[in-house]
């Protein structure tokens, strides 16, 4: 315990230098901005900022990028509540009850509960990252290839099961993503695979153009189709504080949301998005009167908004402890670390304690900044919401193009982004969720590598995946999850949870 306190004090001494505080603030401000602006998310923004981080000291760069990610969780709720569209994908469920509250003249309460819940969750999640990273690094030290394989499979299954949409179609999307992640040169044999003779693909398909095509570009097309210009903004915000009755209902939901988010953030495949979904479903399941949900139940704002912030922060644990990027944003963080010659994984804690503890301390400081940025200064962000979409989408498109280009300085990536924009639009049309594809894409190479190593160790026997208790446990758990969700009773519950849109 004394050691932890010492580490934290050291962390704060790193995070509280004027330079690092400044970059933490920049990250929090930018994060809130891209969270508020629909269609522009942390992935596009971090991709754009990646080249900037070349010139910064690594600690400052990572503090800023981390702040951007959890800052976006704060900003996203503002748009969800006031405009009824998610400013950030992890705020999708907040639109249901948050906007209903705003229509009933309770916008101020909803905004306050979302921000305060996020702040509480942020503080708890910071503590969890600080306390549990060290033991998890030790656990990860005992992990061998089959265990990593099992963990990755479990993460992907959990992500599919906990998210929205048809399970079978989502599993197929993960498989397709795993395949796309393998395009390019095979590390073990040096052979190029599935490049169709295009030399630019020898290094693989970049995940930034894929992610931004599927989410950024496809989403712009879909929003224009919906007639993005016609939307109603609720500008009148009465008192920015919940009533006593609302607070009484919100607190337990904040606690549950924080717990769910902290837990799901740690999974490979976890993070802000599925945490918010899962928290909403749980609230609705345990509510005495589920029919209030969708009509402006404050729990439906408190739980998912706490959960997405907690999940965003604890998703740093798998990256820092095991080197596994659990979602697209953290995959970009991994890229940013690699640029600076830092290999994410168990060694970061011992070799770069300044980075590790500095980043943790900055998370708490960042949350403190964010609560001020998002509550007293809410009026500024409402102004941004008044930018008409018919101007905004052009800006988003140009930023996406520049962002994708600057990562590798190649026009091929811009064209790949266009191709995946088309593919993403078609996926929306045939009701396939793109998120599982990206997850598979990120984890594909890691999954193959651990699969290969496992078979080398076992001399080709697949029994190795069942002989090691950790791996067998993860695989059994995956099977249970899949069976549970495919059995009729639970499936209907899962489908009705999101129906009142």
């Amino acid at each position, binding site marked *: 315990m004394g050691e932890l306190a010492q580490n934290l004090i050291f962390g704060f001494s790193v995070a509280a230098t004027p330079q690092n505080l400044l970059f933490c603030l920049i990250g929090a401000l930018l994060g809130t901005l891209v969270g508020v602006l629909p269609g522009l998310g942390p992935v596009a923004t971090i991709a754009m900022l990646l080249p900037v981080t070349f010139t910064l000291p690594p600690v400052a760069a990572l503090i800023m990028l981390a702040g951007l990610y959890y800052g976006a969780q704060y900003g996203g709720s503002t748009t969800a509540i006031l405009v009824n569209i998610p400013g950030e994908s992890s705020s999708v469920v907040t639109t249901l009850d948050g906007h209903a509250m705003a229509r009933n003249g309770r916008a101020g309460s909803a905004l306050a509960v979302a921000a305060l819940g996020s702040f509480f969750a942020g503080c708890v999640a910071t503590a969890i990252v600080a306390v549990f990273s060290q033991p998890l690094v030790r656990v990860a030290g005992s992990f061998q290839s089959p265990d990593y394989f099992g963990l990755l499979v479990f993460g992907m299954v959990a992500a599919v099961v906990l998210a929205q949409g048809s399970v079978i179609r989502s599993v197929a999307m993960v498989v397709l993503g795993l*395949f796309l992640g393998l395009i390019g040169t095979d590390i*073990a*044999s040096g052979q190029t695979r599935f490049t169709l003779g295009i030399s630019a693909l020898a290094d693989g398909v970049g995940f930034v153009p894929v992610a931004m095509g599927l989410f950024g570009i496809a989403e712009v097309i879909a929003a224009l189709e919906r007639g993005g210009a016609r939307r109603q903004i609720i500008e009148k915000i009465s008192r920015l504080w919940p009533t006593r009755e609302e607070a009484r209902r919100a607190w337990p939901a904040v606690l549950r949301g924080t717990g769910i988010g902290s837990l799901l953030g740690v999974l490979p495949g976890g993070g802000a998005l599925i945490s918010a979904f899962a928290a909403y479903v749980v609230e609705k399941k345990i509510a005495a009167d589920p029919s209030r949900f969708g009509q402006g139940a404050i729990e439906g704002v408190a739980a998912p908004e706490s959960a997405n912030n907690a999940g965003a922060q604890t998703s740093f644990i798998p990256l820092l402890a095991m080197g596994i990027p659990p979602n697209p944003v953290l995959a970009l963080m991994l890229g940013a670390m690699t640029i600076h010659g830092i290999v994410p994984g168990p060694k970061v804690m011992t070799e770069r304690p300044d980075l590790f503890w500095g980043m943790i301390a900055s998370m708490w400081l960042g949350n403190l900044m964010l609560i001020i940025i998002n509550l007293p200064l809410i009026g500024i962000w409402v102004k941004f919401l008044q930018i008409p979409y*018919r101007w905004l989408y052009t800006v988003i498109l*140009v930023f996406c193009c520049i962002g994708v280009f600057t990562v590798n300085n190649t026009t091929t990536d811009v*064209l790949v982004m266009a191709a995946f*924009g088309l593919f993403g639009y078609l996926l929306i049309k045939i*009701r396939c969720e793109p998120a599982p594809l990206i997850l598979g894409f990120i984890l594909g190479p890691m999954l193959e590598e651990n699969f290969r190593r496992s078979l*080398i160790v076992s001399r080709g026997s697949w029994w190795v995946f069942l002989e090691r208790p950790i791996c067998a446990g993860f695989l059994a758990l995956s099977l249970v999850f899949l069976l549970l969700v495919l059995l009729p009773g639970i499936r209907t519950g899962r489908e009705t949870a999101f129906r009142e849109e």
Partner: protein
Amino acid sequence: MLEEGGRRLQRADLWAGLLFAGLGALILWVGAGYSLGVPSRIGPGYVPRLLGILLAGLGLFLIMRSAWSSERIDPVIAWRPLALVLGSVVAFGLVFEATGLVPAILAAVAIANFAAPENRWTTAVVLGALLAFFAWLLFVKGLSLPLVVWSK
């Protein structure tokens, strides 16, 4: 009868199934030439082969399931935003390659602007000028990224 057939063609599982089965078959076909290796030392074709079989299998299952699943696709394609948004991204890439950042932004804005029917030329001119200026200011002057601004 005709309507019945039309409805069947709008089942989401059918289209998703065809997509996944087709892509799975494609993976197996293109990957047929890659070495599978031996079980203890798998080759570059091993995991893609597994994934191809899995994807094709899931696709076939979805095609079969579409006989009694009811979720519908959205058959309307918004051609105007689709063509203009993708066109503007492609134009950005090609014009950047040929000249540089500023013309690429102008070209992208000029095309993307008309994806929303209510936008006029004036919007494109103002947005294009603003975006080109701020991109130059931010990325080239401010962050000194090595981007070609305007060559030739």
